[in-house]
């Protein structure tokens, strides 16, 4: 079997197993929508200023923000937790003893997560159009899709990397949420940090979520006149992804860590 066929086959089985657990599938999709609804209920009618003479309703901000959140949840959070659980359950060790190449197994997990991320973003965008009068920008669509892809790849890699510091499956949700939730609050995802102290913003700027959030906003900005690409932000996200990939390659454990 060719390499591509091996990876596709893994994605197929991951995908099948995912949809067999309807409760898990339902909440995977309901979760970001819930945030979209709540934030719009709370702040949706506020006018926010994106630039000189460019003010819009906060709903326009929330769609790319929740889209970014969806990618982070589907890729980083989901991979980190599910891989930790698979490792505890011995699934990874079993796979390790078969001729399936390690990269093909990982490609299956990453490919499946990326599909979920894309579906989530599409659902969030459609909900934005239907219920909150958000316009889908067409001229920045290539930038939006590529930003989405770079984010998905990078956050998957980081999700794999963090499993090497997660001691066991039960600890994984706590560790993963602790690593990601504070950043979601200070990275213009849940709320815009217009009046935050400078040091807090500087802290946020160390990590990839803030940069990803900015890149997604730019690629979804109705007032954007250029292509919508923010290569500086994308480079930071990509660099973190590369770091995650190297860390995962070096420290990833196939055996339960206890």
């Amino acid at each position, binding site marked *: *079997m060719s390499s591509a066929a091996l990876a596709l086959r893994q994605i197929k*089985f991951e995908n099948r197993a995912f949809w067999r657990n309807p409760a898990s599938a339902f909440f995977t999709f309901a979760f970001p929508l819930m945030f979209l609804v709540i934030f719009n209920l709370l702040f949706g009618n506020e006018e926010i200023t994106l630039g000189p003479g460019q003010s819009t309703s906060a709903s326009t901000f929330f769609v790319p923000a929740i889209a970014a959140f969806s990618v982070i949840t589907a890729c980083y959070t989901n991979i980190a937790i599910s891989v930790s659980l698979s490792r505890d359950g*011995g699934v990874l*060790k*079993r796979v*390790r*003893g078969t001729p*399936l190449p390690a990269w093909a197994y990982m490609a299956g997990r990453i490919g499946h997560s990326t599909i979920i991320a894309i579906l989530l973003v599409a659902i969030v965008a459609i909900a934005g159009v239907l219920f909150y009068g958000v316009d889908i920008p067409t001229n920045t669509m290539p930038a939006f899709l590529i930003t989405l892809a770079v984010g998905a790849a990078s956050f998957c890699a980081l999700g794999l990397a963090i499993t090497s510091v997660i001691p066991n499956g039960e600890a994984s949700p706590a560790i993963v949420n602790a690593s990601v939730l504070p950043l979601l609050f200070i990275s213009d995802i849940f709320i815009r940090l217009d009046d935050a102290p400078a040091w807090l913003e500087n802290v946020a700027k160390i990590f990839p979520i803030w940069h990803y959030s900015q890149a997604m906003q730019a690629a979804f900005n109705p007032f954007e006149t250029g292509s919508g690409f923010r290569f500086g932000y994308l480079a930071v996200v990509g660099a973190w992804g590369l770091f995650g990939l190297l860390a995962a390659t070096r420290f990833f454990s196939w055996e339960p860590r206890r």
Partner: protein
Amino acid sequence: MTSSTTTGSAAGAGRDEGRAEDLAVSVRGLKKSYGALEAVRGIDLDIATGEVFALLGPNGAGKTTTVEILEGHRQRDGGEVSVLGHDPRRGELAFKQRIGIVLQSTGVEPYLTVAEVVDLYRGYYPSPRDIDEVIEVVGLKDKRDERVLKLSGGQQRRLDVAIGLAGDPELLFLDEPTTGFDPSARRHAWEMIKNLQALGKTVFLTTHYMDEAQYLADRVAIIAAGAIVAIGPPATLAGREQAATRIAFHFPAGAPAIPEELRGAPEEARAGDTMAAPAAPNDTVELRTTDPTRALHKLTSWALDNNVELGSLSVTRSSLEDVYLELTGGDEVEGVS
């Protein structure tokens, strides 16, 4: 393939190559430590192709460490290991394609069905076995389209074996395949392993059940504290066939004393090769002898002459368990298994 893995003198290399043809596993001086704990201290093993080999020992004796080194899951500290002509340390694709591994505890996707899981894993091998054939061998035909999460513990264990077989391996590792089974599930598993033997597979089995090793294995090695203390066919392990036979019965109330000549077979006597005089009626009397025919004849003649009924009379050979307990000192080493 074999020549690249053999080293040493010309004579030694030639001998090794000759052996490697019909040896599935060859181990020399295998060592592994975890910190200060020496889990495996210099093991030698040769397993022939088509043989069912059991590594028997208490928990913590080094069974799993040994088998996981042979599978390529763990790195050894010292010694030579050749499995199907490969050094498992390298984790080569060609090696992984030829073995099947059933680990002590492993999980699978709970939401896939039995057939889907077998299909998923068989896809990793160049010439896999048929899905339904594998499911049949492990006796899960009725559960073919059942999701894994609906299977009982014993059925999941059989699925583990099905996955191990899916790639049609030449050598199958079974690490404590029946631990935690109820007696009937264990019987089923044994029949299944017997089926594998009939397929001509080499099976490397670890267990801490004597009866399992005795029933399944062509040869047994007993491992204790990281070293092999006995190796051979279960029937003759550690001189079992020459060991004293045990004759036991309930000493009847009011019977006359047992004649002196029965109380021992002084010639060829081993330690304990005598009969303890019963302290009280209905005590179990044990006679150990290397000449059971003669002893039994004398005993029953005496019983008939004195009109004594020998309750619960039994004649047993030294069991594998006796050998095992003697060799392993009966103590369990806690820690790494």
